[in-house]
């Protein structure tokens, strides 16, 4: 496989934005292209990750729309949809296209506009990424699916309310230091205990928010990047995997086998293991999801993710920093943008340009992006290009 790098990376502010879907996608893409130094005529294809623009803002067929607004006439465009893993799926489509030699330089954009939709409709739209006949029509929502995992994790491993809260407190703390984040407010265990119950045992502060946002990266070959001003970050390995769409069909509801398989493939491709990872951006759509992720990725033993979160091991100054950006919980979760935004944060961290949230001297970053309750997952390993 050719050596592949990310040479340009950018994102919009996350939150409730006035700008439209197309405007935020173009804003992020324009900034990523500028960051890379690539000329627009050298971009050979565009990959757009977005979950459900047709229901959120009544716009399907969005990839050529963004390409034409960017001034990339007639480039091949594709949109990927893999629920909350739509962005990472688009990214890996772009990486594999360049790795194959079909293209030398591609643009990957992730975007979602969610806040213009009433909250009960948003809950419904998101729930459509579950098994509609066997879960959603039976009363499941996404918070409740992760609540079912949390309850089982508590039962099997003794995971506690305080350990869930430690994830939310840490990620809000990190988000305060991230100018792109939706929330710039630290929270306490008392705030969490007093917040509204969404799906017992998960409260409002255990849940990632509804968010508008976009992120973009330029992917090219290491050889091509030598002529560009943008500081390139190498793709060391990646893996994707799937699982049953229905949570109840999985033998074990306290882990995501898709995440385990995806990370095994990524580690094998890179020739490294979990101990070599300097930091990770993981899919903390709910607090329990971060605890499960740190176990699935091999950072901690099964059942040790909760105690590790409570110990401070996953803080920016800890042994294994997790979600220095603030994660989905603190930075925000514009569904289709999230996977690309994780790549952007990894690039910032590895370049050493993450400002107040900079992890000390990182060598290797990992991104972990999950679709639905774990039916799809993509893991990417990135490192400084030699």
């Amino acid at each position: 496989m050719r050596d592949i790098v990310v040479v340009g990376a950018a994102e919009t502010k996350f939150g409730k934005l006035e700008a439209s879907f197309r405007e935020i996608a173009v804003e992020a893409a324009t900034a990523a292209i500028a960051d890379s130094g690539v000329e627009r005529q050298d971009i050979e294809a565009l990959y757009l990750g977005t979950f459900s623009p047709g229901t959120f803002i009544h716009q399907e067929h969005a990839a050529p729309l963004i390409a034409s607004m960017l001034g990339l006439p007639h480039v091949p465009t594709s949109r990927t949809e893999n629920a909350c893993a739509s962005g990472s799926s688009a990214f890996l489509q772009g990486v594999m296209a360049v790795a194959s030699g079909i293209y030398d330089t591609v643009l990957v954009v992730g975007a979602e506009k969610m806040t213009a939709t009433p909250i009960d409709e948003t809950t419904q739209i998101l729930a459509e990424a579950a098994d509609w006949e066997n879960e959603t029509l039976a009363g499941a929502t996404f918070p409740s699916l992760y609540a079912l995992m949390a309850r089982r994790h508590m039962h099997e491993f003794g995971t506690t309310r305080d350990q869930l809260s430690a994830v939310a407190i840490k990620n809000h703390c990190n988000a305060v230091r991230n100018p792109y984040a939706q929330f710039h407010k630290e929270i306490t265990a008392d705030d969490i205990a007093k917040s509204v119950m969404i799906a017992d045992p998960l409260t409002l502060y255990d849940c990632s928010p509804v968010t508008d946002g976009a992120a973009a990266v330029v992917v090219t070959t290491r050889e091509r990047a030598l002529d560009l001003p943008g500081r390139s970050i190498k793709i060391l390995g990646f893996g994707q995997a799937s699982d049953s769409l229905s949570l109840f069909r999985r033998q074990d509801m306290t882990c995501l086998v898709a995440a385990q398989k995806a990370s095994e493939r990524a580690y094998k491709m890179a020739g490294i293991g979990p101990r070599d990872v300097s930091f990770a951006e993981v899919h903390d759509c709910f607090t329990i999801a971060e605890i499960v992720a740190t176990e699935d990725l091999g950072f901690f033993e099964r059942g040790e993710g909760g105690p590790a979160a409570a110990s401070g091991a996953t803080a920016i100054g800890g042994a294994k920093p997790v979600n220095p950006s603030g994660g989905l919980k603190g930075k925000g979760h514009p569904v289709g943008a999230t996977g690309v935004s994780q790549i952007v944060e990894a690039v910032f961290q590895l370049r050493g340009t993450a400002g107040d949230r900079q992890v000390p001297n990182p060598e290797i970053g990992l991104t972990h992006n999950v679709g639905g309750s774990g039916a799809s997952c993509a893991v990417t390993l990135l490192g400084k290009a030699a």
Partner: protein
Amino acid sequence: MAVEIGGGLTGYKLPSGEITIPLPGSSLDHVPEGAEPMTFAGSGTVLTYSIVYVPTTRFKDKAPYALAIVELAEGARLMAIVDGGTAENLAVDAQVRYTHRDEYGYHFALVG
């Protein structure tokens, strides 16, 4: 959705071994080739549960309600509502029995 209230709990086992319990009100006239129809006695165990306070639009008049993953005695699993279930009286491993089906899916009740 027109659903027969009080209907039984039926499904089919695919050649792969996967057991499917179709939507309440579905007939078993279109089961995949090689599938084996099944009728379940209705007793089950709660594997995990949640009390849902913020539902989808379809369930907005139903909340809060107890959602559970139930494992039937025959080994099949399904997502279902446990009527009368609360954060105080539900527990992992609680025993439940099937009561009926309606537009909100399959319903169970705590045993004992």
